[in-house]
């Protein structure tokens, strides 16, 4: 799940090397934290959070496949 968020974020930002995702899992819930270069924040959030919402939707599909739930915070 971490890989998917990393891959998507790196495909959207101008500084892919600055993308960092950390994951912690307890029980069936995976908490992911996404960090980017500060000027790239808008590229993963979007107007009214539209990009963030799309990333979460894809993440949800992947999590469901693995029988888990995922939560994504953009820091």
């Amino acid at each position: 799940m971490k890989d998917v968020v990393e891959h998507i974020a790196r495909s959207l930002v101008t500084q892919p090397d600055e993308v960092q995702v950390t994951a912690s899992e307890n029980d069936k819930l995976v908490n992911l934290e996404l960090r980017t270069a500060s000027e790239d924040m808008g590229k993963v959030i979007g107007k009214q959070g539209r990009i963030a919402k799309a990333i979460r939707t894809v993440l949800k599909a992947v999590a469901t496949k693995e029988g888990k739930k995922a939560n994504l915070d953009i820091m």
Partner: protein
Amino acid sequence: MKTVEMSAKTVDAAIELALAELNAGLDQVEYEILENGSKGILGLGAKDARVRVTFNEGPEQRAIEFLQPIFKKLNVNPEYIAIEREGALWISFSGQNLGAIIGRRGETLDALQYLTNLAVNRQYDDKTRIILDVEGYRQTREDTLAGLARKMADKARKSGRDVVLEPMSPHERRIIHMTLQEERGIRTYSQGEEPYRKVVITKKGVNRDN
């Protein structure tokens, strides 16, 4: 942008190898000759030719490169065809168990489509609009929406009351507006803010102050 370097006895042979590696045709690449190669004298001092070949990826390749790792995580491995239609690039997938990339009411497919457009057009000025489809899902959905639109138009006409449809994406609202453009006795407009914007069907000539 993918680049490979290849060596072979001749320049042509090296390019050939690179094309096979990139899975590309000669018209999709640019190459640079790094070393011309020489036969040497009686096989002594022979040197291989060396080329650097760069694949000029089109939007289609960039889209697939973006989607492939996600598909892998979703455990699907669909085939695809890409065609240009109405100024957009339609990429249609087919294969087994593709429900995972459609999602409830197409929400996963819409999210993937949105992200693919952003990823593919990130560093390019000429934006290509990309539409993702799975085994005719979008066409079926369009037919369903058009049917719903006509039914609701009837209802608005007969009852004289506004019919407010559920929130839809801009693309879906467009289908409703287009379908009802020619219908008599009613008109359509959208209200509300994204992502909750809805189409309203209203009877023409109704005094709205009443």
